[in-house]
């Protein structure tokens, strides 16, 4: 009896479940399955990408928890037959690289640049210095496409930055050359203006493409009757350069105004230009660094002082002659057996002495010992109690002008090449080119020396750089 009851209850349950299984009624809202529709969407998108005559302009925003790097203009030309893509970046006037792409599905449509391209993967590449890369994505969710404006909106899969692509109206080489020039020559560093009678000032970090605005607040009156201000609020937003000026990653909210784009006349001298927001009517007066100098100013003969204040040494008759015009100078007389290069940074209007392989006098060839050891100028973070060395081409020291055109003297300051390393000094070191070596830091190159009385392979605490003629 008991078993029969259990059987009955079980069957009743089965009846309930079975009856339920047939109660479903659903309406097909689409004639095709979701995967068919997604594939059709991707096929259409593929035709669109490869169908544009001149290709596409990508506003490529970069950044992660380690820092923002703003947006870079990239020109892309998609092929169709073998899924190839050619890329150029505003960071280089002429370099172009071809790799592959695929339109695929991963919780939605995805554009993936899936073989290596030095331009498209530059900021996603990890290293011992940036083990998470620098926030550059190379796989993107396609989050929207506007048929009228042909704007394709993308979101990076790893770092999540929003990017977009629009069709190019001119050949990619032409567009890239134009954006390269704009990018290279943009060096406005500060701005100020007023919004509805309220004072706003700010800085432009051109290296990381970040616009930093300070909402100022009056707090009193100075001795001469001038109004004194303090920073009440700081807002910063990454930007990307455009042909007309710059566009923010997200609206810059200042004193109740929402600024999305600022127009800027790149043809005018940058010390005499104004940022204009067409939508809001806001204008901001731009300024260049107060110690900015043109490339040509630096040609001449110098004397350099270095050392701790108790024992300062001098190297005289250091001659700077143009190497690549507008780019760098050859430095003779700083090294006893070698030449160096100093780079001109147009954005700061300063010369920079950076990590480099020292050159044979009058030659472009590096000095190499034993067919293996390159002699390098190594940035040295020398402090009272400790020191650090770093083989990094971005690191070095820059000249800071005293503002005197008749008797120009420059202080040596860290060039800001890295957040966690401040160069104060240099060493001559052997770089071991043998990749099987435990470390590229082989040994101090004591066989070589800097010029001047008592010059050695060390150049501690660079102080001043005085132009003598």
């Amino acid at each position, binding site marked *: 009896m008991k078993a029969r009851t259990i059987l009955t209850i079980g069957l009743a349950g089965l*009846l309930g479940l079975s009856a339920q*299984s047939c109660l479903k009624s659903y309406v097909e809202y689409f004639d095709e399955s*979701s995967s068919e529709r997604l594939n059709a969407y991707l*096929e259409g998108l593929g035709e669109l990408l490869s169908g544009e005559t001149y290709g596409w302009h990508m506003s490529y925003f970069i950044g992660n928890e380690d820092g923002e790097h703003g947006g870079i203009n990239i020109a892309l030309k998609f092929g169709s037959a073998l899924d190839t893509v050619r890329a150029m970046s505003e960071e280089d006037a002429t370099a172009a690289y071809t790799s592959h792409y695929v339109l695929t599905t991963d919780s939605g449509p995805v554009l993936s640049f899936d*073989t290596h391209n030095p331009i498209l993967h530059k900021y996603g590449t990890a290293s011992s210095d940036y083990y998470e890369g620098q926030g550059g994505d190379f796989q993107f969710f396609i989050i929207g496409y506007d048929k009228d404006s042909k704007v394709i909106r993308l979101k990076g899969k790893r770092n999540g930055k929003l990017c977009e692509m629009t069709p190019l109206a001119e050949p990619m080489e032409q567009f890239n050359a134009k954006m390269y020039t704009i990018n290279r020559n943009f060096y406005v560093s500060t701005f100020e203006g007023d919004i509805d009678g309220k004072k706003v000032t700010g800085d432009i970090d051109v290296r990381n493409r970040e616009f930093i605005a300070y909402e100022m607040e009056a707090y009193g009156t100075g001795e001469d009757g001038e109004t004194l201000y303090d920073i009440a609020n700081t807002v910063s937003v990454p930007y990307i350069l455009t042909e007309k000026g710059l566009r923010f990653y997200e609206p810059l909210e200042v004193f109740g105004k929402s600024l999305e784009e600022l127009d800027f006349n790149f043809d005018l001298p940058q010390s005499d230009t104004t940022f204009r927001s067409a939508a809001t009517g806001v204008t901001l007066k731009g300024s260049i660094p107060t110690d900015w100098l043109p490339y040509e100013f630096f040609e001449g003969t110098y004397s350099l002082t270095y050392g701790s204040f108790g024992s300062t040494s001098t190297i005289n008759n250091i001659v700077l002659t143009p190497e690549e015009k507008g780019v760098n100078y050859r430095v003779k007389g700083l090294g006893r057996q070698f030449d160096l290069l100093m780079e001109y940074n147009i954005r700061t209007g300063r010369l920079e002495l950076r990590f480099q392989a020292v050159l044979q006098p009058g030659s472009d060839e590096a000095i190499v010992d034993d067919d293996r050891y390159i002699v390098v100028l190594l940035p040295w973070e020398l402090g009272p109690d400790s020191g650090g060395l770093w083989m990094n081409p971005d690191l070095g020291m820059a000249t800071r002008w005293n503002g005197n055109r008749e008797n120009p003297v420059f202080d040596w300051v860290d060039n800001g090449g890295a957040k966690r390393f401040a160069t104060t000094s240099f060493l001559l070191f052997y770089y071991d080119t043998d990749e*099987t070596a435990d470390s590229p830091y082989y040994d101090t190159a004591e066989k070589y020396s800097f010029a001047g009385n008592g010059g050695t392979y060390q150049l501690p605490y660079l102080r001043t750089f005085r132009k003598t003629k």
Partner: protein
Amino acid sequence: MKRFVFHTAVILAALSAACACVKDQMSEKSVITVSEKKMNDFDKWLEANFLLPYNIDFKYRFEMNESDMNYFTIPADYEYSIVMAHLVKYLCVETYDEVAGITFTRSYFPKMFFLTGEWEYQNNGTFILGTAEGGKKIFLAGVNLLPQYMNTAEDLNHYYIKTIHHEFTHILNQTIDFPVEFSSITGTSYVADSWSDAPFNREFLQNGFITDYAQHSDTEDFAEMLSEYVTHNQAWWDEQIKKAGEKGHLINAKLDIVRNYMMDAFNIDLDVLRATILRRQEDVFNGYVDLHSITIK
């Protein structure tokens, strides 16, 4: 009687309900469609040289799902991937064909290779050259650095080829475990992640390990022993044993176990394997192997 009728009715109703859906027709068309992949010349070459003969999927195009999301990796370069495919084929796959027979290769060699462009950097300054997963997949990093690391056999082995033999050893170990005696020879000297720190990164030989990484654990030690042995000649090996001093006999004791394991478990003579690898390596550096061709023969 009433109860019997009731039970019978319930049974009949349940059976009829269970059959109620039988008339529904299954659609012949799948709701999931896969877009057709376009194959370039390299894809066709890979199909002819890896997929069809060995059922090996050689993935050179980046797929996020195949990568380790704990690291920030980038895609491999197309041209360097072609070179790497040739190196894997000539120095690894066909080596095992020659030494152990194609059936061995088909049975045990990993069914997937996945290439990426850079090393997998960790936040302690070290980086990963490759990994093996589940006995089926070998992940090879740093393909974009291949041109600078293939000038010498030492470099090529250190960064890539030894890595494949190392990872393949893991796969063999995952198939047939190695004897426990191996683990006891230097069992108290494994240091896990400290292998790259001083003094372990300098004194590994003197501690009875063939490389610094071998100090990580017994499984890594075993894979390092085998992969270092088969990619170096006897003179190099003798030199390491000499440097190891009084602990040199520990390394050789472990080598004996590795040698016996390969013979007993897979009928592979370790010295024949080494001679074959070194001969093929010579072929590569003598230019006898076209590393760039994607012509299907």
